[in-house]
């Protein structure tokens, strides 16, 4: 969610709540004997309001479960989640008398809360930056779940490309490709391989074939994010440049096509990496937020009854 003019009313509301909180807190802080605390009437009010905001922010997950229920547009819920969630932290601080917890449970609560807020802010920053980065740097982006399949297709294209100049490539099938071997795409590739078996190797193609089998083909492994020279745009370009010097001119076009396939693979690797970052922060934010809500309930019960 990008923070833009559509957030104005939520920002105003949040600032207003904060201002009201501050205005009421300052005299409360100055006049309460022994300092403000969660157990006072005003402290309980802060606690109730802050918890209500936290619960509301937590309801976003539930809202997303019933996507088509007309309970307000999801984007409005997210805006509310961001601003009410953010403002709930100072309100809870008012509730705690600006302390970071006086007992072990409250300390844990405050630390968890801080982590939730910080991870949320991090997520917001990520959502501002990474989608643009994906747009600019991964023009051939595909559906994330399809990435391994697309990589396998790239490998098949690369195989065909090399076989067209060097005859059948003899390589041990890698275990990761075992599934693909039984797929229709793989079978089609096998047929194609047989079809190109009669292709006469171009003179000087041995070097290209060796380079492909040792360095490039492992780069098209459909799982994980590969490392090595081919992963960096500059280092890859340099590596291809060195290989180009070793090859006859007739093979330069093939090498350029192979380099293009590597570029595409690199884009997909970047997509995977960015995708992990784009969604990875939620692995911190969501479980801790739920833990926070659970512990908050425990804290409320303990404070009220014991």
């Amino acid at each position, binding site marked *: 969610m*990008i923070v833009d003019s559509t957030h104005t009313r939520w920002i105003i509301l949040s600032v207003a709540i904060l201002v009201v909180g501050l205005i009421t807190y300052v005299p409360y802080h100055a006049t309460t004997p022994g300092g403000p605390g969660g157990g006072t009437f005003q402290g309980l009010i802060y606690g109730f309001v802050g918890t209500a905001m936290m619960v509301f922010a937590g309801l976003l997950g539930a809202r*997303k479960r019933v*996507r*088509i*229920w007309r309970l307000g*547009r999801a984007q409005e819920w*997210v805006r509310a989640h961001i601003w009410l969630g953010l403002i709930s932290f100072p309100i809870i601080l008012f509730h705690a008398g600006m302390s970071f917890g006086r007992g072990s449970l409250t300390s844990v609560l405050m630390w968890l809360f801080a982590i939730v807020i910080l991870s949320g802010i991090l997520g917001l920053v990520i*959502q501002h930056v990474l*989608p643009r980065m994906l747009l600019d740097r991964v023009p051939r982006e595909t*559906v994330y779940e399809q990435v391994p399949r697309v990589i396998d297709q790239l490998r098949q294209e690369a195989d065909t490309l090399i076989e067209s100049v060097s005859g059948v490539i003899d390589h041990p099938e890698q275990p990761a490709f075992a599934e693909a071997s039984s797929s229709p795409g793989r079978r089609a590739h096998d047929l194609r391989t047989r079809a190109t078996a009669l292709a006469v190797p171009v003179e000087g193609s041995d070097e290209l074939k060796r380079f492909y089998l040792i360095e490039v083909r492992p780069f098209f492994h459909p799982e994980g994010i590969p490392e090595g020279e081919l992963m960096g745009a500059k280092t890859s370009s340099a590596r291809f440049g060195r290989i180009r010097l070793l090859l006859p001119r007739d093979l330069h076009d093939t090498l350029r096509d192979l380099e293009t396939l590597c570029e595409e693979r690199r884009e997909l690797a970047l997509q995977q990496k960015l995708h992990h970052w784009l969604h990875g922060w939620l692995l911190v934010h969501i479980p801790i937020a739920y833990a926070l809500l659970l512990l908050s309930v425990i804290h409320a019960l303990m404070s009220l009854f014991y």
Partner: protein
Amino acid sequence: MSSPETVSLNIDGKDVTVPKGTTIYNAAKSVGIDIPVLCHLPGLEPVAVCRICAVDVGARVYAAACLRQAEPGMKVKTNTEPVVQARKTLLELLMADHPVPCEKHKELGSCELELLAEKEGVAASKNRFAPPPAPRKLDHSAANIAVNHNACILCDRCIRACTNVKQNFVIGRNGKGYVAQIGFDNDMPMGQSSCVSCGECMVSCPTGALTNVGFEAHLAGEKVDIEWLSKLPIFQGISAAFLQRNEGAVVKRPFKKGEIICREGEFGNTAFYLLEGKVDIFISSPVQRATKKDTRSFFGIVRKMANRLTQAGRDTEDPERMKYIPIDATVDLHLGNPTAQLGPGDLFGEMSALSFYPRSATVRASEDCVLLEMLRPVLQILQKNPAFKKEMDLKYKDRALANQLRSMPIFGSLTPEFIDELRNKVELVKYDPGTVIFSEGDPADALYIVRIGFVKVLKLFPGGELTLAYLHRGTYFGEMGLMGEMVRTATCTALDHVEVVRIKAVDFNLMLEKFPQVRAEFEKEIRNRQEQTKAITQIGQTSDVTMRDFLDQGLMKAQSLLLLDLERCTRCDECVRACADAHDGITRLVRDGLRFDRFLVATACRSCTDPLCMVGCPVGSIRRRNSLEIIIEDWCVGCGLCAEQCPYGNINLHPFDTREDDPDHPGMKKAQVRNKATVCDLCTEHEEPSCVYACPHDAAHRVNAQEFFTRHYVGTPKTAAR
């Protein structure tokens, strides 16, 4: 005496007065003078390439009578010695290049060149000109037409028939001078070309260059005795020679009780005529939505109730929806109970045979029965046979017309008595593919109801033409002109083999007079159509954004695009999940597609202004609502034609489980997996499509493409996002 509108001339001593623009050939014909022709065929545009019709008009050279128009005071001589001699020389030249006798003349004695040569006394044995040094090639690549270039006299009749009559644009001329010959798709073998085997070229050919090779091996079934076939009432009047040559194209098919004759959704190229017994015709796909979710479980019930709360599935209450399902037979099926019975004399499968559409319904023998199964050439000849046409027209008027009228909500208040009266007044009219039924600006003289085929409705506007709609069986057109200024407001063209019910203006007006409710419905419908037309033409006229990409990606034709702003989209797939949730677990959008600027044009229906997907649906289950979005009705038979025709891959077929009759165990059912097509319906039951509503990042937008991009690039303030 000539007037400004007529021309007077003299032909072989006879004074003739004809309308201005009449050719010499037609003028001579009008006074009983027969000028021989070869390349000329009434109904085809004259081209005067053979010059057999050469006549003396007193000029330096002889004129071609088929092309040259009569002129005031012209003196034409058609039979003087020099003219006859010139004609004989031309015939000799043509015969020198022609095998004598050619296949056609050998079999049927009907080669027009050889007949004319015999008549003019041009004997092949005394030909002064040498035959060609080497024979030309034969082309037997097509299944039903043989091409013998040796017999071709390059009269261009086949080219004009293919181009002007059928508008297939397959045949042309290849090469120059002595090596010139006709060619299919720039000299491909006929069987590999885009020829649709309509046979129009063969019918037009004067010689044995294009002949029917018969259908012996094509249809499985009991071979019919031609003599017996000729005696059937529907075949009376059809030449025995034609039936002989097409004996493989019509077979007798006995079926036992319970046997399936054809199955909905399968592609077919034959029509069936019921000789004995009865058959049930029905749609076996249950009339229901494709769903992936089990509605019998606890969660399924909860979800179903939730769907009711969220109004998902409101399609079934659509007031625009028809009550009958149009099928390829002389009956329509009631939506509530989609089954009917056909008896002796009934025909079904016409659209499949004529235009290769998928079967619209399943047909099962309800008792032991015998059918004639026929391929298109036989069906077309039958349709031209007055006895058959009369029988079919009567059957349609008796059985289907009333249903068809009642199935259309607009005619809901017509009384049975009036329908009976109307039945005797309407005409059934056929149109060949490409024929213009009427043009924008023509006087409005009738209302049309589509009985077979598809009609394209076009409107001209500055800068081009725009498709307003594709009309299928059970829809009507022509009412706007009748109820307005008596002038056609759009051009209607037959897309394929079309048959329409024509209600004359006088009967239409009588109907409006007698039934004010019908008038009110028509007026309402006209308002809707006018709004729709206005909306579409506005889209067509907004041309601020003219980028190549915009055009290349077909965005110009999109009325409602699902755009994902890639600067905001976190690829969370909430839109896809929401779509699945809103449509019983089956998503109608894929978060992938072409990029335009920073937007991803998601794979979801665009509600095109030219919705090609609507052409060819055998049961008319895909249609456009008045509110412009495309919907697929629940009675879809899953043939997949719409999905194939959508240029953007926005229609998908989804499997679902059903129980159907078990052919091996009559009376029992067995589980089957069938397909249904699904397309984005824009969640019209809601204010906003679910995908947009559920997007947590304000990245998904349903927009009018032109308005949105105009605003985006030019900054024109327009409300585009929905």
